[in-house]
């Protein structure tokens, strides 16, 4: 249990910095525990709400937020989420796990490519 608490703290901190994103908790649950895929995804959402809810309170103070763009994307995102969650309950779990794996490969590669581009920026932002 202490291990899980420690892992949760580290993953939440990484997720707040923007390393690895929200999928880390699913990876942990899927690889190190016997949690079924859909349950791991549900717990990841809860984990994300807590850790990112906490880090957003810091970001709102320190970062420039474009409220109108956030509002438009969030509203349409909620519609997308309603469709996605309906589908997730119908897709077999082993298939869901494979789709999740595919998403990880794509997003991992995208972030690797993005970092190469970032390192070319002179001020290193």
């Amino acid at each position, binding site marked *: 249990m202490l291990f899980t608490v*420690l892992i*949760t703290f580290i993953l*939440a*901190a*990484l*997720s*707040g*910095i*923007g*390393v*690895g*994103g929200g*999928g880390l*908790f*699913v*990876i942990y649950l*899927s*690889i190190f525990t016997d*949690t079924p895929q*859909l*349950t791991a*995804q549900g*717990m990841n959402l*809860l984990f994300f709400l*807590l*850790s990112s*809810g*906490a*880090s*957003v309170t810091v*970001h709102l103070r*320190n970062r*420039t*937020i*474009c409220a109108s*763009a*956030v509002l438009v*994307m969030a509203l349409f*995102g*909620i519609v*997308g*989420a*309603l469709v*996605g*969650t*309906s589908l997730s309950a119908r897709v077999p779990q082993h298939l869901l796990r*494979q789709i*999740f*794996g*595919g*998403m*990880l*490969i*794509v*997003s*991992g*590669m*995208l*972030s690797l490519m993005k*970092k190469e581009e970032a390192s070319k920026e002179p001020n290193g932002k």
Partner: protein
Amino acid sequence: MKVSAWRRYGKSKVALSLMGAGLLAGFANGLLGAGGGIIAVFAFAHFLRGEEYERRDLYANALCVMLPISAVSCIRYSLHGHLVTEGFGALVLPAIAGGVLGGLLLGKLGASILKKLFGILVVLSGVLLIIR
């Protein structure tokens, strides 16, 4: 929206793209319980990139988008009976404390090497999940 993108691409095109990206990010988040954030980051990188938005701002904006979306997905998972909260109580505090720490570090850390390592780790985990 104080964005040069309005002028660069035209209002309707920007609005439509943000709606499309939102739909896609929400769909990924609902279907997979994760993964919408990267779509939001890429959309913002395209449309908000300008003098007043640095890379860290884009990430913060994406988090603000994903929070309400994840709340809706989480409620739906719970209604479908896929939210197991047993044993989660002990993780609430470390998740919040870690989140605050990460939020503070985002302002101070370049973290590019760390991100590269995790990019590789995420790809490997994806392969592992598929072949398992």
